């Protein structure tokens, strides 16, 4: 195994209370607005896709020690460094020292509202029928892949029921590896808490994840 994510936190023990926050409180450190804007503006250059950027963030060795905007910045620098767009000496110098590597597009100020309103849809036309229908019993794969994936650890090897069919979407696992979109059917799969947490399950709790078809097998044992 060479791929290690530090972001797969669902169900992990040892965490204290959640600290609520007033609605208008957007920033906590002066650098954060620019960190957000730089991340979005560089994302708009098309130099990487959203799954590559998630992979860059979750593999940062000090992920657990960083605030979220620090995670974003560190991943941004990593993604640019990998593409030769930014070199460490330039960050230290605070100015350009090496010629730019051309980017596909630059987000102009006037184009921001339209770009945000458009977004980046991930639904694609179906090229095959969906394997599962609402109500089908399924079991998630138990294997841990050696690359970015969106099947959380707590939901591996578990039996659940298909609750929604979301259409065919860009497959995060392949897109993150630069292997193309390879769109797959996407489902909401709901699990009884007892299937996930055993005797620790809270009564009346169900947890749903969104799972691409390659994460799922039919559960021959019937409904959990």
């Amino acid at each position: 195994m060479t791929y290690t994510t530090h972001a797969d936190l669902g169900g992990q023990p040892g965490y204290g209370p959640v600290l609520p926050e007033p609605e208008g409180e957007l920033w906590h450190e002066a650098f954060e607005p620019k960190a957000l804007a730089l991340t979005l503006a560089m994302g708009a250059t098309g130099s990487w896709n959203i799954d590559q950027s998630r992979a860059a963030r979750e593999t940062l060795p000090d992920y657990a020690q960083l605030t979220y905007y620090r995670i974003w910045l560190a991943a941004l620098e990593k993604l640019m460094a990998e593409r030769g767009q930014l070199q460490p000496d330039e960050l230290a110098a605070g100015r350009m020292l090496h010629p730019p590597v051309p980017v596909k597009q630059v987000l102009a100020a006037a184009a921001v509202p339209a770009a945000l309103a458009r977004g980046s849809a991930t639904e694609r036309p179906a090229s095959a029928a969906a394997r599962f229908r609402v109500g089908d019993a399924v079991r998630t794969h138990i294997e841990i892949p050696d690359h970015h994936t969106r099947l959380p650890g707590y939901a591996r090897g578990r039996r659940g029921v298909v609750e929604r069919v979301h259409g065919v979407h860009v497959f995060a696992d392949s897109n993150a590896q630069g292997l193309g979109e390879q769109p797959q059917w996407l489902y909401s799969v709901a699990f009884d808490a007892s299937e996930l947490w055993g005797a620790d399950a809270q009564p009346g709790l169900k947890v749903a994840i969104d799972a691409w078809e390659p994460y799922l097998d039919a559960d021959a044992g019937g409904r959990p």
Partner: protein
Amino acid sequence: MSHEHPHHEDHSELGEMDLRVRALETVLSQKGYIDPAALDVLIETYQTKIGPRNGARVVAKAWADPAFAQWLERDATAAIASLGYSGRQGEHMVALFNTPQRHNLVVCTLCSCYPWPVLGLPPTWYKSAPYRARAVKDPRGVLADFGVTLPEATEIRVWDSTAEVRYLVIPERPAGTEGLSEEQLADLVTRDSMIGTGLARGSAA
């Protein structure tokens, strides 16, 4: 570092992160990767235009207009777009209607996926390890952190946003609000009630 910076402000009060971000902005501008004016528009947009008041209008309309509520349930992306909210991190929307029998709660255990067009930037706690770790296993404990206690018989349904579908919780409409306008109703809708960690203002619980 400050001596080599092309600008001439006094950097003595700037921390390491401020300098790092300033250096990044300078280098990326010099390389032509970014339009510095776009940064200001992006920040301004999420400070003043795209935030939870958008979602509150969606909820208020769903409370006031049964036909809109049905549309929202059937095709949330289109129904929400009809109010002018669409795009980045809300390309594929699903609305989750709370009922006396079922309370919905949204989390992203793997990162911080959040419906930006209707709720804006996620709060710190939504991105934090305690929320992401506990929401899927101990949602009643998390709700208690927000001062919310639900009846024991209420089913709690947690939605972990593991793909590009984004979830908006439609909280229950508080009793005694029949005479209110949509605008007044929207004032009852908190951000947390649209994530599921809160209830609408005036709810009995």
